[in-house]
Structure formats: structure tokens, C-alpha cells
């Protein structure tokens, strides 16, 4: 059973330990690798305005489940709390929202609004990018074969035609693309 979500919707979700029923923090940043179209992990912040703005890092492998209402981890030790180690994880990072998207042949598509993740039994994967085309229009472009990213994110020619305007439409596009390729991966 899989579902697709916008990465931005995961921000603020509580992170809960399965062994103690304790909320250790909330999701602050969602980290992904565009070259591998993979989910890398979450940074966490404390709950409440006066709490710590950066509590730790939760690697992809330590996420037991990403549910509709909470991210579940086995125990508190799943969290990397050492400040230097956490900073190492988020070094060399780039904010996705606001980044420009162009096709390989140079057509400007717009700027990234959000990233679409698929949540399944194996975990989370990057499956698409929400592109703001201006004037309130948004297009969801499938994450085909990983994206190159220099000054702008470069997507293959034809990514625009294989895109949808909403998550429901995008789900169908994903199914079609997978059926065409005869497999699960994009």
C-alpha cells in the first residue's frame, strides 16, 4: 500500500518512539538527493516556540514508518543528536523551493514549490517535483532518472508532457509511466 505526499506536508509532524510512546520532536527539514531521487532523512526541532530549533537528524534507515499523523522510530537512539554530526549531514545542501527548473534543451519550466514523495513498505522515495509556473499554476513533473542540478534543476526533455496538475492526476501518471516501463522504478 503506497501513498503520495508533498514533502512540505511532513514538516511539523511529531516524531514518536515505538518503545516508549514519547514524542521526541517534530520534523523540521525534509532532505532528499535529487540525483538518486531518494529520501535522505529529516532534521528535527523541538516542540514549542522556545524549544530547540535543531534537535537532531533522523536518517532514512532509522524511520520505522511515516504515517498520516506521525513519523515513528524504534527508539530515541534512532536520532543523531551530536551537533557536529548533524551539521555534517546537512552540509552542502540547497533549498529546493524557489530553485529554477529547466529542461535539458533549455526551456524554463518555473521554480520548485515542493517535492513529491511516495511512501511505501520500503520507505520513502522522491517521485516528482511541484513546479510553480507563475500566476497560480502548478505542474507536477515526474522525477525521471534523477535530476542534475547546477544553477537550476535540469529535467529531461519531455518531462513537461508527462506531468500533471494535482496529486491525484500525478498518481495516475506514475502508474502509466511504470506500466510503460514494466516495473516499479522510475
Amino acid at each position, binding site marked *: 500500500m503506497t501513498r503520495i505526499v508533498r514533502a512540505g506536508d511532513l514538516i511539523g509532524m511529531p516524531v*514518536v*518512539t*515505538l*518503545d*516508549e*510512546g*514519547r*514524542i521526541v520532536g517534530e520534523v523540521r527539514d525534509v532532505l532528499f538527493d535529487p540525483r538518486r531521487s531518494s529520501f535522505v532523512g529529516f532534521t528535527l526541532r523541538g516542540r514549542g516556540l522556545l524549544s530547540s530549533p535543531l534537535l537532531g537528524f533522523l536518517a532514512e534507515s532509522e524511520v*520505522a*514508518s*511515516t*504515517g*498520516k*499523523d*506521525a*513519523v*515513528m522510530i524504534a527508539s530515541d537512539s534512532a536520532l543523531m543528536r551530536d551537533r557536529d554530526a548533524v551539521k555534517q549531514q546537512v552540509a552542502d545542501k540547497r533549498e529546493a523551493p524557489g530553485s529554477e527548473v529547466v529542461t535539458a534543451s533549455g526551456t524554463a519550466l518555473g521554480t520548485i514549490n515542493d517535492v513529491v514523495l511516495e511512501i511505501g513498505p520500503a520507505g520513502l522515495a522522491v517521485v516528482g517535483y511541484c513546479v510553480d509556473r507563475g500566476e497560480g499554476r502548478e505542474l507536477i513533473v515526474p522525477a525521471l532518472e534523477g535530476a542534475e542540478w547546477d544553477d537550476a534543476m535540469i529535467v529531461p526533455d519531455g518531462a513537461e508532457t508527462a506531468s500533471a496538475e494535482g496529486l491525484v492526476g500525478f498518481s495516475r501518471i506514475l502508474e502509466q509511466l511504470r506500466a510503460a516501463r514494466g516495473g516499479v522504478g522510475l
Partner: protein
Amino acid sequence: MIRLTQLVGQRVLTREGSQLVGAVHRVLLDPGRGMIIAAQLQAPVGGHSILDWAIVESVGRDGVVVSEARTREPEGEREQQLIDGRLELFGKSVLTEDGTALGEIEDIELDEVSGRVVRLHLPGQVLPLGRFVAVGPDVVIIAAPTASSAAASAR
């Protein structure tokens, strides 16, 4: 069956002499076994507030009968959390182990002989339940209800 709402506030009496030991204030559940293992008493005689559920002989609408008037101080982190009110069950949020919120606990049905949890009362549904994944200070975690048990128990 007895509901937690009926159990809380009940007098605890010894079998012989019907000595009043105290009144049930909060219960401590063992999540894996899904049963009451201790209770925090209110107005305990002798000043100690923890009652081991092992000495409970029977639970009825009129009182909890224990084999002896034996209470003690809290031992360990969980009993301390119980005393601090952090393991209060009523109103505690329930999550499935895959991260879906089911609402807040309205009541818990227990077998009065064994102290085992039988059903969990949540907004809009009553779930048959044998054990918990965790009973914690922030949330209670249960295994995801199967489609058939959820359908059978929806009000």
C-alpha cells in the same frame, strides 16, 4: 467486564475485616501483556500509594478486594511517571504503530478477574485489543486495527 471509568474512584478493601486501603486513582498498564500491574491509590492508609495488582482478588461494582492491606512507595521510572500523572490514560492520544492517529482514549474495558484489557473506547469506534505497543507519557501506541475488526466495531 469493567470499564476504567467505573474502576477509578472505587474503594480498595481487604477481604478479611473489610479494612479500607484507599481508593483507585490511576492504573499502570503493562503494554506487552495488556494488563493492569499496579494502581496509584488516593487517600491511602499508611501513606504509601502504590498497590500491586497481584494482590487483588476481585473487582466488582462496589469495590476492589485485596488479600492484604499492603501498599508501597513507587519504584522505578514508570511508577514515578504514574505518580507524576504522565501516564494518565483518559484523553491520551492513540496512534497506530504506522503513524495514524485514532483519537483520544474515552474508556478502556477490562476483564475484572485478570485485569487484562479487552477493548479500547475511542471516538467513533470500540477496538478489541489484547496488548499495546507502548503506553507512554505522550501517546499510546497500538497495532493497526485489521479491516474486519475495525468494521465490526464502528459505532
